């Protein structure tokens, strides 16, 4: 065992079906976000910034775009001589092929990968959330508590506790109780789905759980409760800062709009904690004489001749003269033609909003998701 070494295993197999059209061709971690990122850029950049250089990415559902986004990991400085980022899809052996069946099973199927890296600690991450977090501080906490498991938690508004897995802790941060989506909670600390395990302990439970025919092979439902029942030391690490699950179209749109608040706590401009992404080598964007731009994020290769307000624009977007776009997220390659207007919408890649079209209502709080063929209301 390499003392003090921590590796990360990132569960990126999720379909994210509540994101509808956004995930019809790709896994949820590959969904574009914030003008130039994909969701998975956040945990990957966190790893790199936290000095974690061994990252296994478990893929299963439509991994093609994710694979081509990650490439050899160079964007996140994870193209390493040894270790680095490794994509871990399901595989076959003499007994035939085995798809991943539950989060814990996905890790179990890659025991040999982890054993070869021989870490003391394993960090389990998911590719579904937007946040910046220094995992090395969580590890310091884990070590200082001499815990077997540390679960990262965040305080959520009391009226939303029913949407989360809620943990109750004592004054020493020891976890005393779990509630999965409770109707009435007496704690507002929600699990962020980020775990640090001592690998030797986790390994044992994974092997045992695999043999249990009644197990759903899930960390939250099976592994954690079993370890708790055995009296393993489980502590909660309280995270403070921006954290958002972009599980629905509405929350996806909101998380993008959050970036337009000058005082947003995600702060993408912090040079000490950059979020890295694949680079496209596009030229700067051009704001024409006829344009008006206000409270918006604009990425490379855009050409803005019309009016935009409160928008997040990805790359190579063309907003023609006299077009109006407000409170919207526009994905790469889209075009809004002269005279068209778009409000409270998410416009997907390469969509052309024809001249004269009106999409959305500025006074409604419904968010529209617009693809080339259909419009979905959230």
């Amino acid at each position: 065992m390499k003392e003090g070494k921590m590796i990360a295993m990132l569960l990126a197999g999720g379909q994210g079906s509540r994101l509808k059209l956004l995930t019809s061709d790709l896994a949820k971690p590959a969904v574009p976000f914030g003008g130039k990122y994909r969701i998975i850029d956040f945990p990957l950049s966190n790893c790199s910034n936290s000095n974690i250089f061994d990252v296994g990415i478990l893929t299963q559902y439509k991994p093609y775009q994710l694979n081509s986004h990650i490439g050899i990991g160079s964007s996140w400085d994870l193209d390493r001589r040894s270790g680095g980022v490794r994509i871990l899809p399901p595989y076959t052996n003499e007994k035939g092929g085995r798809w991943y069946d539950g989060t814990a099973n996905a890790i179990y199927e890659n025991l040999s990968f982890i054993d070869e890296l021989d870490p003391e600690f394993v960090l389990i991450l998911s590719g579904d959330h937007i946040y910046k977090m220094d995992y090395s501080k969580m590890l310091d906490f884990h070590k200082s508590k001499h815990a077997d498991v540390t679960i990262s938690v965040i305080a959520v508004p009391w009226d939303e506790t029913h949407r989360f897995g809620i943990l109750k802790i004592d004054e020493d941060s020891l976890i005393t109780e779990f509630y999965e989506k409770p109707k009435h909670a007496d704690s507002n600390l929600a699990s962020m789905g980020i775990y640090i395990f001592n690998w030797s302990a986790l390994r044992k439970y994974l092997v045992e759980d695999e043999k249990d025919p009644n197990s759903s092979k899930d960390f939250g439902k099976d592994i954690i409760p079993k370890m708790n029942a055995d009296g393993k030391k489980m502590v909660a690490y309280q995270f403070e800062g921006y954290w958002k699950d972009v599980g629905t179209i509405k929350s996806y749109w909101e998380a993008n709009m959050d970036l337009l608040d000058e005082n947003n706590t995600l702060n993408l401009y912090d040079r000490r904690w950059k979020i890295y992404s694949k680079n496209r080598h596009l030229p700067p964007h051009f704001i024409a004489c006829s344009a008006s731009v206000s409270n918006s994020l604009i990425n490379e290769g855009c050409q803005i001749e019309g009016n935009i307000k409160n928008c997040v624009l990805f790359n190579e977007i063309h907003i023609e003269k006299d077009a109006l776009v407000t409170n919207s997220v526009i994905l790469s390659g889209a075009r809004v033609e002269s005279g068209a207007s778009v409000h409270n919408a998410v416009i997907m890649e390469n969509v052309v909003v024809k001249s004269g079209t009106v999409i959305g209502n500025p006074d409604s709080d419904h968010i529209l998701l617009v693809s080339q063929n259909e419009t979905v209301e959230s």
Partner: protein
Amino acid sequence: MKNCLGIINLSESDNNMNLLCHSRPTAMLPFAGRYRLIDFTLSNMVNSGITAIGVYTGNKVRSVMDHLGSGQAWDLDRKINGMFIFTPTYDYNVAFAPKFGDLRHFHQNISFIRYAPQENLLFAKSYMLMNIDYQKAYQEFVDSDADISMIYKRVNDPENRFLGCDKIHLDENGNFESIGTNLGIDESFNLSLEMYFMKKSVYFDLLYNAIEKGTAHYLREAVFSGLDRYKVHTSEFGGSVFCINNVKNYYDANMAILNPEIASELFYKNGLILTKVKDEPSTYYKPQCTVKNAFVANGCQIDGFVENSIIFRGVKIEKGCIVRNSIIMQKTQIGQNAHLNYAILDKRSRVKEGVTLIGDPSSPFVGGKKSMISREALT
């Protein structure tokens, strides 16, 4: 073009670049919000399918190495072929630097070209800026079985932007006749783009002749003096060309990209221009800003009034600023209520609150790298 080796020599004259070339060669001048001039030279070659490129750094090694690194941005960090960087050798640098031109440098690294598997060479300069697909000119060179081929552009130059450049004369059949220097006599002429295709054997012949007979110190001279002995072909280039050999031309070339047609040609026509990655987030336009006719790179935060300007990566323009007709380079910060017109501010400058800097279109105000400009300092 796998049989063609690209050669870029960065020992270009930078006497007319004011503070901008104090610590960098011309090739490393920042351009158009996120590039350096050499990005165009390298990307043109890479996009045309050239897989091996030698770069002779000249003496300002640091700036060159910082930008080129291992060639990763151009996918030239390769085991087979890729980018070969030639810094000055020790002897040359200390003992002979002032006495010899680029031929000495080429000669000291002669084994690189000799042992390269490619049979043809393409020499290019970075101060001639364009987006060119070399494949057509290369095919012509190969098909014509010429010894040397030069690429030229037919230019109309009433404003004398190309003064002092090389000028190619063709006979009535369009064949090469001679090459000379443009003194601005003719308004229209054939501008040499200083790009030469050459057979390797011809290169060695030129080099040995020039050094042994002492007839030339620069490759350009050697080529000119050898033209009577060789079969010379010429190819015309039809696109836009900017010659960045003084501050005025540098300023004008930057401003030219505010024309979307020119921008589209320079940045997209024959392939994207590749450069070093900086991982900047998108640019944030604050609620009260006003931006018109501007070319803006990523990572900026803009809260003032910006017009007819080129804004590089990571620039901050604070509330109440007026920035017009200016070029603001990487990570420069413009404090509140500052007023800039016809200014070029180099990387990481800081203009403090309320400062006014006004240049003239024919002679813009130039602020050096990392300069700190405050009202206290100016008075």
